């Protein structure tokens, strides 16, 4: 009888602790992956090379538009029907998408258009702009996803290892943007402040060199830095004067410190595999610097913010492919 009693007691006990009450564990809130606080590897030591501003010397006379020498990379572009360029879409006055018209325009874009005109005779419908971020500039050239990059890219020895540059097309310099009410006079006064620079840019390396006490913050693009600045996540921005001029134009509560602490010579980036294309682009640059096209473009885009310029930077040649 006791054997029968036991299950009865057990089932009674089960009754009292009846399951399925509808009390659920609270929904778990997923943990956000913490952004790895890895301050990017220290900038690679600057490699010494012969003057980085030296590009390949143009050879012969420039072929007329539409008649590219067969077998050259320009002929290949001509056959394709369009020049593919990697550009920025958010650096006001250099390369930015006009929100009203949707067209990407600026000083960098004018350089690309000049190259397209030299190949096709026109820049209407012969340019395909691909928007790339700062860290993408070298990879897209190495993978040959674009023919040419015009995205405020500084010519230096390290980059010459991976890609080829045209002759210098603009001499920029690094400056610092701070809030309007800041009392700082130079980057040195910004110890312990968060300063933004695009990831993978020379600006970031220069910032770390110039003032190691400032806390670097990175964004993917120049405009990303401006958004961080406006939301208070970055106290200041450091970058090329051209970019900062565009930032100030969008935010009246920012000002640029006059101190210019580096020289940033801009070059058009191309693949190392096509030296004849680099030589051709150098001819194009020499031509527009000489015939006033360059100056007209400067006057339109950069002069309002950066002031008058006597002459375009000189083109330096003398490099031989493979060095």
């Amino acid at each position, binding site marked *: 009888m006791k054997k029968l009693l036991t299950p009865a007691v057990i089932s009674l006990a089960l009754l009292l602790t009846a399951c399925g009450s509808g009390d659920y564990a609270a929904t778990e809130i997923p943990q956000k992956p913490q952004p790895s606080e890895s301050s990017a590897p220290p900038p690679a030591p600057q490699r010494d090379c012969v003057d980085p501003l030296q590009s390949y010397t143009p050879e012969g006379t420039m072929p007329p538009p539409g008649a590219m020498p067969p077998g050259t990379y320009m002929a290949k572009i001509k056959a394709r029907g369009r020049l593919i360029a990697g550009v920025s879409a958010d650096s006001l006055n250099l390369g930015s998408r006009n929100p009203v018209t949707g067209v990407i325009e600026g000083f960098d874009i004018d350089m690309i258009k000049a190259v397209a005109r030299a190949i096709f005779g026109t820049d209407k419908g012969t340019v395909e702009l691909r928007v790339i971020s700062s860290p993408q500039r070298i990879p897209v050239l190495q993978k040959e996803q674009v023919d040419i990059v015009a995205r405020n890219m500084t010519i230096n020895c390290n980059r010459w290892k991976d890609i080829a540059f045209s002759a210098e097309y603009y001499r920029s310099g690094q400056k610092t943007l701070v809030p309007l009410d800041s009392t700082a006079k130079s980057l040195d006064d910004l110890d312990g402040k968060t300063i933004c620079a695009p990831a993978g840019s020379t600006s970031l390396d220069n910032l770390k060199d110039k003032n190691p006490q400032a806390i670097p913050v990175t964004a993917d693009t120049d*405009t990303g830095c401006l958004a961080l600045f406006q939301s208070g996540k970055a106290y200041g921005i450091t970058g090329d004067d051209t970019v900062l001029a565009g930032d100030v134009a969008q935010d009246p509560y920012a000002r640029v410190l006059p101190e210019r602490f580096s020289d940033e010579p801009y070059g058009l980036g191309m693949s190392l595999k096509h030296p004849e294309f680099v030589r051709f682009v150098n001819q194009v640059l020499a031509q527009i610097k000489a015939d006033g096209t360059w100056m007209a473009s400067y006057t339109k885009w950069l002069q309002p913010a950066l002031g008058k310029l006597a002459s375009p930077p000189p083109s330096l040649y003398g490099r031989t492919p493979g060095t």
Partner: protein
Amino acid sequence: MTQTQSAPPATWSPPAQQPVPPTAQQPGSTPARGPVARWFEGTPGRMRAFLILTAVMSVVFGLSAAQGFRQADGALTRAEANAAQLVRIQAIHTNLVSANADATNAFLVGGLEPPDQRRHFVDSLAGAARLIAEAATAQPADTAALGALNQTLITYDGLIEQARANNRQGLPIGSQYLRDANAVLQNDSLPLVKALVQANEERVDTEFDGIGQGNLWVVIAGLLTLVVFFVTLRWLARRTHRYVNVPIAAGAVLVLLTMVVGGVALSSASSKADETRSGAYDRTLALSRARIAAYDAKSNESLTLIARGSGDAFDKAYNASAAAVVEQLGKLNEAGLRSQWNAYDQMHKEVRSQDTKGDWDEAVALAVGRTNGANSVAAFTAFDTSSGDRLQATSGEVSTSLTDARDGLPPIGWLGLPIGIAAALLVAWGMSQRLEEYR
């Protein structure tokens, strides 16, 4: 024990009222278990023991049957509530991805947002906000996660409005805020929504499983009780040389009937619920998932164009989302939806081919619906509208059929205990007849 055979057992007093004080109250008195042991001595004592056991088992059966029914009923109610909550969460998800699809699409048109698109965006976000409040009331366990979701939405909407204000002034930084907003939605909001969806799917599954478990209570307790009745009847038959003790047998029949009726009712409710689960509920899930994947696909179409040539990753994401739509639609027998989706997918291919040909402007015109005639927006809206209608119909079906299953249950939930007590009283009545003979 004064009843006669004909009297109903209504005034039968339980053995506890016998003038037998419990042993614990008589410490030190000679033979410690004396009175109790004496009470169970010999044949009448055994009868009393069987009486107590069988009566207790009857009551336990009554309680178990009630518990089984309450559990099944509760599980049905909760399954319905959780399914409704899941639909709500998925509606939140749909609203968010649809708002984001509008926002990314607006990125392509800049400051001049089409008013319809703007209205759709505002409606979607307002719908999400309202549903979050509803969902937090409906399921307290979700409150914390929904609160966190609400926070991300405030950030998201703030960034969107900042983007609009800047776009309206023609400042390129507007696009950066739009990108940030998109990142907040993708990295902060959607993981929360996915956690909510998962938690609620698990709850629905648990409750659907629980409906069948209610039957176990009825059947196991019923069988156990019948065994006790059988043993009692057999022992009585042997001891008293009478074949059947009618009241006890009647008690056994009462237990058997309750078990059979209850078991059948619960099985039918449970199979009805299973039908709903594999029918309307699955269709609801598939439709919701298809719609969410579809909005993701539309967003990715815009993002591919925004990236202007470096949008390979977004194009792959489009293909993954589109494959998910097709997979989910494949679970449904909805030829109409399928062909509407294909029409949109065809438009998307047209957008892609324009873009790869280098005609970005034409691709954008198609993607934002600026062209006359067929375009990506019109094709997508057609799919969106009819899939939304279908979703509303199927999710309504889930709740109706679960309510039906619940309404079909006999009222054993509250009749169980009275039935058990009645069986116990029958046992007492039957046993007291035999005990009389030993007076």
